[in-house]
């Protein structure tokens, strides 16, 4: 469930556009006004505001935001204002570039979005980058990462809840056999993980646990320093319990572990309208303090205000 708070009486897109224009004018920028508006509008509303702003003032709202804002706050506002599909396309494209490359972000997008969301991302990618997401991922990843990521990104999973228990059992066995032999990039492993529906995969992993005594991710920790295994474990988490995956990303970002620089911004802006409620719950359970508190401690200024607004702190 989303944490984004939208006021009951929303001003029209032209009113919002006008207010935003005012926020840019004169000396300095009225950051509070920007937060009050953009952190309290849903995707459809933000798209309308952008459209109206462009028509009224002849400039792209995003370009204005880029000019006026700086640093973490700027990135958070830009990312959040984007339409979700465009946002993911932007993040994915960034993830294929040399200096910002990140297999993790590609995996995150491929595995935590629904089939239809992922489809929209691919369309947005065509429109914006004149290439397909699949070809850029294929071109810019190598070896075992490519073997895993291209199928993940190409998938159009069935989204129904039906589960075939016999299949779940047999595929749990296949996974167990391959993992015991350390054949982590075996075609069968990739096939199961990249084509099965999420419901089916869940059933398979439950069977795995029951039949073999360990959750699959425990068995995949055989070599704790193996980067590929880390990614594979994250794939499984993302597909079956995304809020746990995102909780961990947030935890590590806030505690400055790991090197995922923009993680906090990314997770908050991409999940505020999706499942931030459950992520917050997972965070509180795991860390014994509410996410709001952790973010308030770790960030400051307008950036902090924006993030807190997105995760539902304060009023609409």
């Amino acid at each position, binding site marked *: 469930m989303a944490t984004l708070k939208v006021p009951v009486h929303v001003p029209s897109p032209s009113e919002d556009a006008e207010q935003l224009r005012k926020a840019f004018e004169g000396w300095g920028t009225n950051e509070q006004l920007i937060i009050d508006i953009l952190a309290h509008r849903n995707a459809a509303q933000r798209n309308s505001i952008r459209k109206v702003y462009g028509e009224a003032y002849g400039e792209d709202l995003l370009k204005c935001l880029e000019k006026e804002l700086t640093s973490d706050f700027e990135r958070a506002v830009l990312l959040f204002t984007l339409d979700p599909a465009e946002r993911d396309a932007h993040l994915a494209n960034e993830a294929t570039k040399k200096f910002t490359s990140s297999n993790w972000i590609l995996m995150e997008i491929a595995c935590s979005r629904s089939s239809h969301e992922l489809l929209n991302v691919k369309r947005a990618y*065509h429109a914006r980058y004149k290439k397909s997401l699949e070809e850029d991922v294929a071109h810019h990843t190598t070896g075992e990462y490519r073997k895993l990521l291209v199928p993940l990104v190409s998938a*159009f999973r069935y989204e129904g809840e039906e589960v075939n228990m016999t299949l779940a059992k047999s595929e749990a066995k296949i996974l167990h056999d391959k993992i015991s032999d350390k054949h982590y990039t075996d075609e069968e492993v990739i096939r199961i993980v990249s084509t*099965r529906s999420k419901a089916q995969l869940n059933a398979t992993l439950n069977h795995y646990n029951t039949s073999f005594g360990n959750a699959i991710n425990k068995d995949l920790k055989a070599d704790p320093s193996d980067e590929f295994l880390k990614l594979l474990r994250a794939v499984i988490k993302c597909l079956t319990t995304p809020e746990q995956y995102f909780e961990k990303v947030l935890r590590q970002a806030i505690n400055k572990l790991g090197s995922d620089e923009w993680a906090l911004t990314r997770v908050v802006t991409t999940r505020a309208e999706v499942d931030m409620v459950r992520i917050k719950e997972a965070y509180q359970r795991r860390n014994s303090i509410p996410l709001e508190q952790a973010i308030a401690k770790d960030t400051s200024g307008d950036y902090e205000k924006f993030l807190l607004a997105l995760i539902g702190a304060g009023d609409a």
Partner: protein
Amino acid sequence: IGVDEKSLISILTNSNEEHKRSLRKGSSKLFIEDENGFERWDQSSIKILKHQFNRFRDAVVLSLLHPWERDARLIEKAIRKGPKHYNVIVEVACTRSSDQLLGARKAYHSLFHHSIEEHLTHIKGRERKLLVALVSAYRYEGTGVNEDVAKSESQILYEAINNGDKNKLLDHEDAIMILATRSKQHLQALYRHYSQSYDKNLAQDLEGEGILKDTVECLCTPQTYFTRVLEAAVKEDADEESKRALTRVIVTQKEQLVKEGFVPNKIQDILLGLYKDFMLASIASGDIK
């Protein structure tokens, strides 16, 4: 597609018993005098008649279905029927537009409660990798090709085909990635570079390589592929499968075929010929309007 429906219907609906009996008596190819005093139908001729009607029925059904459902069913059937039919999967995956293929994938979800990729698991052979990759594609469809990349990728394919183990082509990761993710424009540019650099064309170099050749043809030179399929279907000794391919190709490609003024006269003649013969043989009297 051949059966002269109008004439047939008018004959059958306007005839009384006397007339029908004289029709039967006059159609010595279809009906034989039985010793018990009735005109009995000849097994083998009626078999042909049924076949023609089946093909007509198949063509009608295929035409009526929404293209997405039609393609989903074609794929599902091909998976079930085995290796000789995998070219149909390649055909659908590679000759439809990106959105049409996507539609087929959605229809597949609705009809069969699985994704195509999942059902392709039933394929145990080496073709599976390529087929999964092709069916999962959502290719960019705009113009704008990086000629340098196209050239270097044509080199990769050349080396895979000529220097590597041809048997391992279906496992060649790079080749599969190129064929399954690049846009059709890009692949057509790659095809050109291949011919220019190596003096032979890519499809010819894949002669005998089954679905790999089909893939390249469908993506780069679809007319060649379709011509090949149609010609196999109109040969004297064409088998049932090839003939079914005729229906499939004509129904699914008719806009394309018409646009390119493509339907070879051969086909028109053969179709008309078959049904013309049939009509003449079954109706002795000359008063068909």
